[in-house]
């Protein structure tokens, strides 16, 4: 049924609109809020990491600086003889270890030629030769140096702080100490954040300075490259050049956030690495909550939109049904009104022959009471009067027959109806009324197929249109009724030469209760009933009217089954009939 699909598409479009209108602002709010939160949270996390790394870089630098300062102090303050003396050196080492929590592992004094002159410490390094060691040469050159981590003579990772000293004879000496590697490594390893955040140090060559790790060794070159490519951090101007970037370096590893900071005057780089999902765990949690809320909201909106549109359409459907019912009642009411009008016309029509019969009967009565003997003239007069009564009686019979053929079609059931026949019948009833109103009726019937309609309803349509036309011509005129076939539609046209309908009223003529007739004369239902009936048949009705010239109502009724209908086109015998009522 087209009705069902109409309501379904109505439901669909309403649902889409409601859903769209509700979803759009929700999604916009959620996305904007999420984006703002994401931005500010990321900024916060990054700046927190920057701060953390900077602080640690500072503490590592200060650790190295302190050790160096202590060595310089020792080198400068202690007499050379005391340093050259093994026992004294061991005593000094002991003091330093006590003072600095055993950070200094050993102490050694190396002569200009690279031969260790004195040594105090756990390793049997004795007169080790350092002439070719890189650190030794750097110390000789710069006067002070903290070496990279290397295995050295003892075969263990360690690094050295070396200080140069020149004696009275102008000979240079180098005081060196090994820094406790474990203590130093712990310093770096203590930088931990979340589950995956950890730090390490690499030198310029990309060698790991804190312990050994194969996975780290793999990513270091890339990290350094990326760090170099990343622009200087925001704090580079007045502090340490902390750089932040995110990358997925290890194959199979996840996206990680890297924070680098130069330490030891740029010789080393402190690298902090934390996996993104760990660093932004809160953010991701918030995002998940966000998504859950969004999903729930979307679902709720969709369900509500569906329910609301369904409910609304159901209501519309119910009210449509109600309207249809009311329409039917209108049609009933209008039927009575037009039947009333019809009855008045018929009564008048029947009144004339009845009046004649009454007068003729009275005349016979007069003649009979006149005298006992009937003259031949009077007898002939009585015969004439009786003939007249008979004539008038058959006139009454004709009228009642017309009325009966009209009344016969009160069955509202839908059947095949011959429109031309129906129009003929209605015109027959309206003829007398038209004649008295000086209206000439013109019929122009072309053969049209039968239409599928309720004869009673079609009568309503015709009666109302014709009554209106007659009412519009109170000074006489021409009523034209025409039928023809056009584009698979049967067209019925009723035109009058009456006073016409003003443009302002043309929009409202099909509204129920709209009437221009004086109170008590018109119900204002006629045309709305016509409209309702025509719409129900799937047809259309059009009006054209000019004030002072007349109005034309065209009713278009679809032919249901063209093939069948074509076969049933009325016989050409009835094709054109242009009977004119006597004016």
């Amino acid at each position, binding site marked *: 049924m087209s009705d069902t699909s109409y309501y379904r598409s109505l439901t669909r479009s309403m649902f889409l609109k409601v859903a769209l209108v509700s979803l759009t602002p929700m999604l916009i709010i959620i996305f904007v809020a999420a984006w703002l939160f994401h931005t500010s949270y990321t900024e916060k996390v990054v700046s927190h990491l920057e701060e953390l790394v900077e602080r640690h870089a500072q503490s590592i630098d200060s650790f190295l600086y302190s050790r160096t300062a202590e060595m310089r102090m020792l080198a400068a303050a202690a007499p050379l003889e005391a340093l050259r003396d093994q026992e004294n050196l061991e005593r000094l080492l002991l003091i330093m270890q006590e003072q600095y929590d055993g950070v200094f592992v050993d102490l050694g004094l190396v002569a200009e030629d690279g031969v260790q002159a004195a040594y105090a410490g756990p390793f049997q390094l004795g007169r080790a030769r350092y002439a070719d060691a890189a650190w030794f040469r750097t110390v000789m050159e710069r006067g002070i140096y903290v070496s990279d981590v290397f295995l050295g003579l003892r075969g263990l990772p360690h690094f050295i702080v070396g200080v140069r000293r020149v004696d009275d004879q102008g000979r240079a000496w180098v005081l060196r100490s090994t820094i406790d590697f474990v203590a130093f490594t712990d310093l770096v390893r203590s930088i931990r954040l979340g589950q995956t955040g950890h730090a390490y140090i690499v030198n310029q060559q990309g060698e790991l300075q804190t312990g050994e790790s194969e996975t780290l060794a793999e990513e270091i070159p890339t990290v350094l490259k990326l760090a170099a490519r990343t622009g200087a951090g925001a704090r580079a101007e007045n502090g340490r050049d902390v750089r932040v970037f995110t990358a997925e370096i290890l194959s199979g590893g996840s996206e990680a956030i890297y924070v680098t900071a130069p330490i030891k005057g740029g010789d080393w780089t402190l690298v902090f690495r934390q996996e993104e999902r760990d660093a932004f765990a809160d953010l991701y949690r918030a995002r998940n909550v966000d998504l859950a809320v969004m999903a729930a909201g979307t679902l709720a909106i969709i369900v509500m939109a569906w329910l609301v549109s369904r409910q609304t359409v159901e209501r519309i459907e119910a009210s449509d049904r109600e309207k249809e019912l009311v329409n039917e009642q209108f049609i009933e009411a209008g039927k009575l009104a037009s039947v009333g009008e019809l009855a*008045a*016309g018929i*009564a*008048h029509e029947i*009144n*004339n022959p*009845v*009046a*004649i019969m*009454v*007068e*003729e009967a*009275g*005349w016979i009565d*007069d003649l009979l009471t*006149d005298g006992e003997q009937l003259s031949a003239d009077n007898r002939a007069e009585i015969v004439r*009067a009786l003939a*007249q009564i008979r*004539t*008038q009686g058959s006139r009454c019979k004709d009228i009642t027959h017309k009325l009966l053929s009209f009344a016969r079609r009160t069955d509202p059931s839908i059947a095949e109806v011959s429109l031309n026949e129906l129009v003929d019948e209605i015109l027959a009833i309206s003829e007398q009324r038209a*004649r*008295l109103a*000086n209206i000439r009726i013109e019929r122009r019937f072309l053969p049209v197929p039968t239409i599928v309609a309720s004869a009673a309803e079609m009568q309503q349509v015709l009666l109302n249109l014709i009554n209106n036309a007659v009412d519009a011509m109170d000074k006489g005129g021409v009523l034209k009724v025409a039928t023809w076939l056009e584009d698979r539609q049967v067209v019925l046209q009723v035109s009058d030469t009456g006073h016409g309908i003003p443009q302002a009223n043309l929009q409202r003529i099909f509204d129920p209760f709209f009437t221009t007739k004086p109170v008590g004369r018109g119900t204002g239902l006629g045309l709305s009933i016509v409209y309702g009936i025509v719409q129900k048949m799937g047809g259309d009705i059009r009006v054209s009217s000019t004030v002072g010239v007349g109005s034309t109502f065209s009713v278009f009724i679809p032919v249901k089954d063209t093939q069948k209908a074509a076969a049933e086109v009325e016989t050409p015998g009835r094709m054109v009939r242009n009977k004119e009522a006597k*004016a």
Partner: protein
Amino acid sequence: MNSLKIMLVDDEAPFVDALAKRLAHRGITVGKAFSGDEALERLTEGENPEVVVLDVKMPGMDGIQALEEIKRRFPLVEVIMLTGHATVESAIQGMKLGAYDYLMKPCDLDELIRKAGEASAKKRGHEQKILEAQAQHIALRMGD
């Protein structure tokens, strides 16, 4: 007293004929017209009825129009409207336009004659007054 003079106007010829015979039978002078136009024509030609019995519903010039025309051109002629039930309103309108009375069709003959008699009496009264007025006028002139 002169006999009553009536003109019957209706498009239904058999009705006019039958009614005319019955009225004539009762000694009333009856004129017949089958349309408003014909009635006016006859009046213009000099036919001088006291009462015109006029059907309201007629093709061509209808009763109301005929009444207006008669009252305009022959103000002293009294008119009785004849109407079917459906046109009582136009009969009332006719009374407002100067008709003496109205009768419902089919009407009782005696009632018609009675009303026509009343109308005729009224007309005669009017004419009497006019004559008196004219006589007085002449007397005044003579008295000058």
